[in-house]
């Protein structure tokens, strides 16, 4: 047990100290209004396929980002809450250890990587993910002519039989670093925005480098409202949530 704990510690904090960047995402639950702009924005950016009514009925929809909805209480004291859920990019990710072909691993910048051309589709990672955020391609994705004209050239179209998931818009991170390199500087806070963060009307999603102690995400992650989901499982997610508040007007 002791050894296990040590290994988690090493794995989860090494990259933070040794690398310039450690990407993190903060989601303010007090701001999220469940409008689903991020869901469609993500789909547009990352060539995520739609599966159609029948396959949705088999729970095979592929949204990399979904909004979970909780209804609490009884009429008339009902509360509805929203929670955007995507790959948490765990520092010690349960999915990584079960992949037989190293198609999923942790990269030096703190992201959980899915390498499509390595994946052989065992689906072990999906089963081992406590957040259920890995999606399996049951079919070749359907982008018939002329719909394929919209496909983002920066992201590969996944074929049948492999796993896919949120990449924190790796193509945008890469482009952001590329631009910074051209200008001979480090990436500035706010330079890089994943599709969901860019489109979120209420500004609930913030993305940045948590190694930079001046960054918004660093400050928000240390604001006291920040929590990680399933903290007790020791996954050390890079995605953190800011708790919602309630202060009732009446009673």
């Amino acid at each position, binding site marked *: 047990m002791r050894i296990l704990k040590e290994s988690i510690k090493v794995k989860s904090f090494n990259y933070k100290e040794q690398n310039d960047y450690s990407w993190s995402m903060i989601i303010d639950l007090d701001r999220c209004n469940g409008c689903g702009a991020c869901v469609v924005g993500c789909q547009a950016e990352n060539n995520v396929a739609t599966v159609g009514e029948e396959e949705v009925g088999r729970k095979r929809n592929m949204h990399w980002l979904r909004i979970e909805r909780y209804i609490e209480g009884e009429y008339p004291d009902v509360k509805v809450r929203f929670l955007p859920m995507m790959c948490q990019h765990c520092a010690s990710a349960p999915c990584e250890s079960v992949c037989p072909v190293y198609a999923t691993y942790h990269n030096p910048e703190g992201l959980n990587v899915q390498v499509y051309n390595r994946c*052989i589709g065992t689906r072990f990672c999906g089963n081992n993910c406590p957040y259920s955020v890995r999606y399996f391609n049951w079919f070749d994705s359907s982008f018939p002519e002329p719909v394929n004209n919209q496909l983002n050239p920066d992201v590969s179209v996944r074929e049948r039989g492999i796993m896919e998931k949120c990449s924190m818009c790796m193509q945008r991170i890469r482009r952001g670093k590329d631009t910074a390199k051209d200008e001979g500087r480090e990436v500035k806070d706010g330079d890089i925005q994943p599709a969901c963060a860019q489109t979120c009307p209420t500004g609930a999603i913030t993305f940045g480098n948590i190694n930079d102690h001046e960054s918004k995400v660093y400050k928000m992650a240390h604001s006291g409202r920040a929590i990680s989901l399933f903290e007790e499982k020791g996954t050390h997610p890079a995605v953190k949530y800011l708790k919602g508040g309630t202060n009732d*007007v009446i009673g």
Partner: protein
Amino acid sequence: MDRRSFLKLSGVAASAGAVGACSRASQKVIPFVETPNDGANPVDGDWYATTCRECNAGCGIIVRTVNGRVKKIEGNAMHPVSRGKACARGQAAAQTVYHPERLTSPMLKGAGGFEAIGWDKAVDILSQRFTEAEGKLFFLNNGANDAASGIVSAIFGKMDGFVSAGNQEPGFETLRAGGKDLASFPRMPFPDLDHAQFAILFGADIFESGPSPVFWGGAFGECRRGRASVRGRLVYAGPRLSATAAVCDLWLPIPPGRLGVLTLSVAQVVVDIIITRKLASSIPRNALGRWSNALREYEPEKVAAQLEMMPEHIRKLALPFVDESPSVAIAGADVTGHANGVAALDAVEFLNMLSYEIGREKLRIHERLTPEPNDDLKRRIAGALGVDHEAQGFSRLADLVGGMEQGNFSMGIIHHTNPVFDTPSGLKFKEAMAKVGFTVAVSNFMDETAAEATLVLPDHHWLEAWSVQTPDFVPGVPVFNLQQPVIRPFFDTRSGADIILAAATAAKLKTPAATTEAFVKGTIKRFRAEMHGAPVYLDDNAFNRHLLRNGGWWPEQIETEAAPVPSGTVLWEYRDKLKAPEPEFDGAENPFYLHPFQTVHMGRGQGANSGWLQEAPDPITTLMWQFWVEMNPATAAKLGVVEGDMVKISSAHGSITAPVFPYKGIRPDVVAVPIGYGHTNYGKLANGRGENVMTLLGAKRDTVSGALAWRSQKVKVEKAEGRTKMLRNAHPEGEYKGEVFQL
């Protein structure tokens, strides 16, 4: 995927390999004929600024194009409406451009249905009809003052018998009419949610039915957590706990049509507090006394019973409205949806006026009682376009339908709107349309209205076309939006306005310009002459470049102070208006209130043919690809139905069947049905998905403004045969609750 192909193919005969490898040979590299010389980088992607036309909110957007194809839509960070954000419907437009069901050839209805004809023939037919019509024609669009409406007005506007009307989103007209009598000038209410500490939403489903869900989303974010020390608090009053209500701190399930009573009751308490605490010195004391007397009958004790609330709860609602100033009251769908809507809106505006007067000394909140600058601007732009600014109301539409029935028109042009589908069956638009000899539908898709038309003209997608536009709802600054093509037209379509211009020229009518693009440029010029606030330091070319680069023009400093607003006068004699009339209902003998509502994805039904939008889960039910009716679990139990059971909802006008979704956040006497489902002729993805709630509605109207009262219908609900599997988004419901929401 070479490795995977290997696994898949190793069992197959080797000869197939050669075929696979050879397929590489067919790949082509197709360069430009001429390099774009504006410093563009079309292979990595270029961003063009334009205006989203999925609804009339007028969000500024930027569009990423790669090699002449639309890839992604984002909000324009400089734009005061969108503030760099976009909604799901705006995002989905990137896919709609390449929709396989887009119309590509003009079609004329003959004996055997539609027949594809050439563009030349379409122009010929149209010009012949223009000559024969002699001005006896109508033009109907979605209520936008854009280039097409300007062109049509310029050609036909002066002819006797020409009528222009707008099939606007329900509710906007009432919003515009409300609060008019409070001040000495017309205005559209604009509550400043951004800077409010406390807000009461009177049935305002601002994230679903807008106007502009994106703008309101940003305002809500700022209000809630935009300031370091203040967490904005919101209360929602209305019969259904909508997605907007879900983010509020408290939900008050008020009976339908009684929000005016609640507003005046809160106002009564607020006025009393003002008098006893001697607040708001700017209000004449005698005015306060008169209001206090007029509001006596709305004391919490007297109205609590009909609101189904405790009197002290109303007082507790009024207290933070004074203490946590700045506070705002926002009216929305559940106010504008009833026949007493304008009266209730007057009350809400009265409450806002009180709030402003209370907070006036200490707060930087925008001028509460000023004419909406965009109302003025809209009139100016309407002037520059030469269109009838008042043409957008439901009254005008109802008059138009009356005229169609009486045979006043020999032809009509229906431009990007689908009234056969989205107007209430009580209006009988489809029947009236059949009485018009020749109807032209300008559309991107075959829809219910185009199917009824005689001639269908496939238009460019708005991402491929020129136009101008003004936001329907605006954040206190004048905004002039330019819509520019970001790609070359992908299909063989023509701009509908261009075809109308060509046909009018052939019919020897006077036309304002040769093309839409020329008309847009002319409009910009005329607008500049009209608009005093426009930057005079830029010459015409520089201003055009500014418009192209920014997707429109608005004052650079987005502060209310910068907006050119004349100060107005508050009419302190405002007293007779402090009334909340009894709501009237169509089919009052029926037991249930019908609550049609817009969802964040479907709009009025335009979103139904988009795979992205159909598969995006609804916020409240998380249903995908599916139609439903919401009712309280107690009601469902009484009817003997569970989730997925079909029920039949009927009124005097029609009936629909829908699967039940029991939802705790709705009053037991209300059934809620989403708008935008039940298409019969809108493509593969939309057809037959649910039923159209509009078939249940009569054309009941607001008693003051004449706007459609779209929530004043009562219905019967009974159990029907059959069951459906409800396609909810799968997630381990409830598992994270303890962690996330503990305080």
